[in-house]
């Protein structure tokens, strides 16, 4: 037996296909490895960063304090009400809102704008429908009463 006949007899075509497959599979694997090499190098270069991230993942999460709600920037509405009330007495009623804010800033009330806004929202300062504003003493008294009751 010689030539093609011998090749066919000993499963030559199948072995050839298998050989080609093995070679191509190896080339594919190599290509995949090479295409991902930059990632591996990046990981190696930043190994400390990834190590820290991994440590954070396995450690118990620390509770971060929730950011405080923006404005009004005062703790006690009574104190701001008292200060603004004194100013209103000095200016007289009805008063101009921009003027009140300007005076409040001049005497050093911090965040005068949001303080006045807070008093308007709580109806301590009310519009007179002519473009000026009034101090609502009833609302102020009610607020003080509620505060006393809560204590």
């Amino acid at each position, binding site marked *: 037996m010689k030539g093609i006949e011998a090749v066919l007899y000993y499963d030559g075509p199948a072995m050839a296909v298998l050989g080609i497959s093995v070679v191509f599979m190896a080339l594919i694997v190599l290509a995949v490895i090479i295409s991902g090499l930059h990632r591996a190098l990046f990981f190696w270069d930043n190994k400390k960063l990834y190590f820290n991230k991994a440590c954070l993942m396995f450690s118990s999460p620390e509770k971060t304090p929730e950011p405080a709600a923006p404005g009004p920037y005062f703790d006690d509405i009574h104190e701001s009400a008292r200060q603004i009330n004194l100013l209103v007495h000095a200016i007289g009623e009805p008063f101009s809102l921009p003027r009140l804010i300007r005076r409040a800033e001049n005497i050093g009330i911090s965040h005068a704008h*949001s303080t006045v*806004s807070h008093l308007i929202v709580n109806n301590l300062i009310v*519009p007179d429908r*002519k473009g*000026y*504003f009034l101090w609502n003493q009833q609302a102020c008294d009610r607020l003080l009463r509620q505060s006393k009751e809560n204590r």
Partner: protein
Amino acid sequence: MHHLDTRQIKQLQIFRDLLPNEWEQLYPLLSQVRVIEGEQLLREGERAHRFFVILKGHFMVHKSDGRAMTLRQKGDIMGWSSVSFPFAYTASVTALTAGEVLCISAAEFLELLQSNPALAEKVLKKISAFINIRQKVGSLQ
């Protein structure tokens, strides 16, 4: 400037009745701007070059004679002089608290309104309704 929440903005009184094609024309003109407490958005007497819609915050509309009113309703408008004669702000606006507003360039807004009468009618009707409400609440005219 910040990402616009289109769903939220479409719900605003002034834009509520716009058709999809009208909205598409208007949308590129809108920008969302953050303001800080005490910031002056408009100055009385200056050429009206911007129109604002309140998204968040408390604002004081005030005139040089000392009269004022405050706005804190989402969708309230400020600077409507930019789309009506005399094209100069008739009052100043100062932010009482930090907030967010929609800002529209007056020139672009006017150009759009002039090119689309149907849109102009809807928007100007809404602006007129806002002005009427304000006059009832506390006139600054």
